[in-house]
């Protein structure tokens, strides 16, 4: 049993922290949050040069052949610093899906472009029902004249505003079970009939509505098997949930550090507020939540990385981390007091993201339903 990072992973962590601190200061984070694009092409290029987009892609597709665990280390740092932009969508939701389900031609076409930062991808799964189950996929794809025609509305689609390709999950057949008859399509985001509208959100992340109005997609753009796409979606969601946990653990760690360092400096009643037991106990609760989240996340990530069945572990990690991050950031706000209630301050960046992270890929209630099932209930 070894719960620590390898030497290479420690190096990745340190270099990622240094890089992000220098290249993605909070001023830039705030600027990007307020922008319509939500990312900096210049920073994106530098990240590609560092090999981040190709970190988990095999060498034959221009990547460096790292493991899912390596990616988790990197995502934790992205959560720690806060890195706005479509990395998560492109690599976790897009790249890993194509790697898992794509045919050789698709892998050769898309993955090297992912690795060198040339394209942005995202997963278009959720719809106005806002659920992550197969029954909620109502968007239809109908075969016609050697092509598929997609019609429907996708909602809460991350980074679709800047995506080059959408991995659109659509229904190609009404089966007996809702899981039957689902197919994933690689859709060029500039296809006629694709209409993307940016949504204004709490975390100021770039979630979108996408309307597919008679969008034609060549048959070659089916990712994986026709009608049998749901297991692929499930596997994407599992990886995405753990990946989101990693980001949240990083963000929670940063929130803790910010609050503790403020508690040591801020003087009231002639003493640092961190010497008051009330504040000390808040901090103790925060670190308990941070550490607690970290190790269940690592276990889930390790299982996913090793290809071991991880339904329970992923649900445990996401259920816990989702809510723990929220508690940590709320206590952070409590410690910062009024100054934290300003746009100038950084605390709200984490507080906002904690809620967005909780909701994305299944919140606590959703994940506990999975856990209940796994318990045999």
């Amino acid at each position: 049993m070894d719960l620590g990072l390898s030497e290479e992973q420690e190096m990745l962590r340190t270099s990622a922290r240094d890089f992000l601190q220098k290249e993605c200061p909070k001023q830039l984070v705030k600027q990007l949050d307020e922008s319509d694009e939500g990312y900096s092409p210049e920073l994106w290029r530098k990240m590609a040069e560092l090999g981040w987009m190709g970190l988990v892609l095999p060498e034959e597709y221009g990547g460096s052949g790292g493991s899912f665990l390596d990616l988790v280390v990197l995502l934790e740092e992205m959560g720690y610093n806060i890195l706005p932009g479509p990395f998560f969508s492109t690599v976790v939701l897009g790249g890993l899906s194509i790697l898992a389900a794509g045919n050789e031609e698709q892998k050769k076409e898309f993955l090297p472009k992912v690795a060198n930062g040339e394209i942005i991808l995202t997963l278009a799964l959720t719809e106005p029902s806002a659920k992550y189950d197969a029954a909620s996929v109502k968007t239809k794809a109908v075969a016609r004249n050697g092509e598929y025609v997609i019609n429907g509305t996708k909602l809460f689609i991350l980074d679709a505003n800047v995506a080059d390709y959408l991995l659109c999950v659509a229904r190609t057949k009404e089966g007996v079970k809702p899981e039957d008859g689902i197919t994933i399509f690689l859709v060029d985001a500039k296809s006629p009939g694709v209409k993307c509208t940016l949504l204004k959100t709490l975390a100021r992340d770039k979630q979108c509505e996408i309307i597919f109005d008679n969008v034609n997609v060549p048959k070659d753009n089916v990712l994986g098997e026709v009608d049998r796409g749901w297991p692929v979606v499930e596997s994407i969601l599992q990886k995405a949930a753990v990946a989101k946990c990693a980001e949240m653990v990083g963000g929670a760690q940063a929130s803790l550090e910010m609050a503790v360092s403020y508690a040591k400096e801020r003087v009231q009643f002639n003493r640092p507020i961190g010497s008051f037991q009330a504040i000390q106990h808040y901090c103790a609760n925060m670190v308990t939540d941070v550490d607690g989240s970290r190790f269940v996340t690592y276990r889930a990530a390790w299982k996913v990385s090793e290809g071991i069945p991880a339904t329970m572990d992923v649900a445990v990690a996401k259920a816990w981390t989702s809510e723990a991050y929220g508690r940590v950031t709320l206590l952070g706000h409590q410690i910062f007091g009024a100054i934290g209630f300003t746009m100038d301050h950084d605390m709200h960046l984490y507080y906002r993201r904690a809620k967005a992270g909780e909701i994305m890929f299944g919140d606590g209630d959703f994940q506990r339903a999975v856990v209940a099932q796994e318990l045999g209930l």
Partner: protein
Amino acid sequence: MDFKFADEEEAFREEVRQWLKKEIPQRWIELDPGIWEETEESWALSRQFQRKLGQKGWIAPAYPKEYGGLEMSHTKRLILAEELAYSGAPIGIEVEITVNWVTPTIMLYGTEKQKKDYVTRVAKGDLIFCLGYSEPDAGSDLAALQTRVVEDADEYVINGQKTWCSYGHYADYCWLAARTDPDVPKHKGISMFVVDMKTPGITVRPLINILNRHSFNEVFFDDVRIPKDNLVGEKNMGWYQLAMALDFERSSIGTAAINQRIIEELVQYAKETKCNGGTLADDPLIRNELAGVAVENEVLRMMCYRIAWMYSKGLHPSYESSMSMLFGSELIRRLGNVGMRILGPYGQLDVGSKWAVLNARIMRMYLSSISMGVGGGSNEIQRNIIAMRGLGLPRQ
């Protein structure tokens, strides 16, 4: 990173399971005493079992071989502790206190003779210590203790009162913290002694706990004379010696394993209990609650695994142990509450009622869990430790 146990470790887990299946007395299972519920009969069964465990080397597997230990790896000890707790084996807080609190200090600071006398017998399962720490006016502020020890010729003479001495009425020895110098700051005048509980002048008076059982005591020392050899370590350095030993191998893996067992029983109960034309397991609220405590228990388990892993790396957890104790104690209280809600009115029924469910284990745990988070350093003290030692927050 690797969360897998080695094949050899998995084999060890299986060996422990098989051994426990064979060795836990049937009568113990019938009596089914929870924490703080021991009786004369169950205590005798416990001691018998613990000697057998001692023969296997599994009472104090961490100790050096020369003192009867096995120098067992940290991971295997984690596995052993997990299996012992999950199986409900007759091994409780008395062994935890003796093995993980008392003897480590003796090993660190005791003379060769003391190590031979006490450590070896503890490892065999022959010896139980009770703690002489708390006093009526020294609880969380332990260093305020007033029990006095003075030298008189070649003896020490003890006068004072200790309280909350768990199993003081059964223990062979008391591990006593007492004041040897009243004229210096409170932390600097405390020494540690081994006191034979049969020494004249000791009076043990029962305190009846919340479960209406006799598990702890007041212990009065009235001109109790002990040999000078019974001082452990340096005189007046007791506080610092204790602080060193407090970090010895404390995780709450036992709590996680006990919780696991209770969660499994509640899951089974929910699946079998009819309700509204289905079973309790169909109720989304009950599913959510049970899943919630299961999630938290996995968080606790990972906190404990992390502690074992740190030790195996030669690192010394400090605030991490406080964290797992804190989290574990709050979780077991929540679990007690969740269990009571699931059982509804039946949860109130005590052992002996034909209507009682799960042998009233949940309501007993609902009561006994109050002690977690109070005993062995309250949760407030644990949070102080996490904040000051772990996060470096200032004292003033």
